């Protein structure tokens, strides 16, 4: 089992292969359908995508209970982000985490731009919550669970799915 820091360095990505079980620690940002749409609008308007160089986690958490930083936070289905991922890769978001298979165009773009996609374990929301040490809303708070949250994570398990 490999231990990897996020955001993931391009040189580290080169050492990964499909099927590797990894534990991620560091910083990542949640983004799902609605946030992707807004991020694409920003890219089109400004020429730069927010969160360039960062790791995106396709997830929309449950609200935290008092004394907690986040609620259950497992991965959502990756395929719904397939239309956005190639253009985000082209603009410097090289690592993503979700669940389930992805379109061929995403596989092609990951190879072209030297990215990586991980599968987290779907349905394991309570487990992944226990890997999060801090959580703050950074973009689009009006989206609620679909907002972009900055997460600090420790030993977050996932499997290299496309590289």
């Amino acid at each position, binding site marked *: 089992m490999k231990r990897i820091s996020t955001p993931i360095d391009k040189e580290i990505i080169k050492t990964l292969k499909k*099927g590797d*079980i990894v534990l991620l620690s560091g910083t990542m940002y949640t983004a799902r359908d*609605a946030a992707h749409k807004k991020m694409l609008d920003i890219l089109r308007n400004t020429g730069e995508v927010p969160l360039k160089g960062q790791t995106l986690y396709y*997830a*929309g*958490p*449950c*609200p*935290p*209970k008092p004394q907690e930083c986040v*609620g*259950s*936070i*497992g991965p*959502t*289905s990756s*395929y719904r982000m397939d239309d956005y991922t190639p253009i985000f890769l082209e603009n410097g978001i090289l690592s993503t985490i979700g*669940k*389930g*298979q992805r379109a061929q165009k995403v596989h092609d773009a990951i190879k072209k731009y030297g990215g990586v996609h991980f*599968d987290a*374990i*779907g*349905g*394991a*929301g*309570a*487990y992944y*919550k*226990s890997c999060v040490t801090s959580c703050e809303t950074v973009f689009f708070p009006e989206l*609620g*669970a679909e907002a972009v949250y900055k997460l600090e994570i420790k030993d977050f*398990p996932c*499997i290299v799915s496309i590289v």
Partner: protein
Amino acid sequence: MKIVLSQDITSAIKKMCMEICVCLDQKALAKLKHAREIEDSQATAFALDIMIKNADIAKKTSSPLCQDTGMVVVFVDMGQDVRIKGGYIEDAINQGVKEAYQEGYFRKSVLDPISRENTWDNTPAVIHYNIIKGSEFCLSVMAKGFGSENMSRLFMLTPSEGIEGIKKAVIETIKDANAKPCPPVVVGVGVGGTMEKAALLSKKALFRGLDSKNEDPILNDLEEQLLEEINLLGIGAQGLGGKTTALKVFIEKYPTHIAGLPVAVTVQCHAVRHNSITL
């Protein structure tokens, strides 16, 4: 005549929602443990270990098993001699959902399909009413996640396609869904009736216990054959490959028209979240 108070409906719905979103069905947990024991693939065994640990953490910390705490589906089986007092039944059910999703700190995932504006309390529930004989009043509740719901399908087959056509439809649904519905899945199949009746049967089928047998021997055989064939697909937990793609197949049937053979397949993820109560 039996009287059922609307406040009792609210409390029953609230209690069931709060339990099912946090505590994995014990029979599902046993089946996941069995799947782990027989699994050879390292990555798949790893994924199953995490699912099993997840159920434990969720229960111990009263946290939702999955962040997608679903859209609530309620089946009401109401005896024709029952009278509801204290308020409209639909309001009572939705109040129970609202209280559970607020107090349980569950995700509010329900919104207007056109404007995409969230209702922020996870209501309304999808409610199906069934009038039965006598004076029983039974509520069955399911928290239905949409990773799996999005993979559900409806087939309007021709009569000539027969049982082979039904099998092909189910296998095609699970094969195409692959890793998306968080396998190992539970599969509900509705056969017959009209388009909407088949869909309803496929949902209702999922309320059966995971260790139960179908009372109809032909359907029971079909359930067993389909489970075996699905598991031969090799999709495995989370689509990582392996022996267990489905935990169980349930089939319900209803008479249909001479010209048709409707088949609906509801796909459910490994987080089996439903319960029933008789008031």
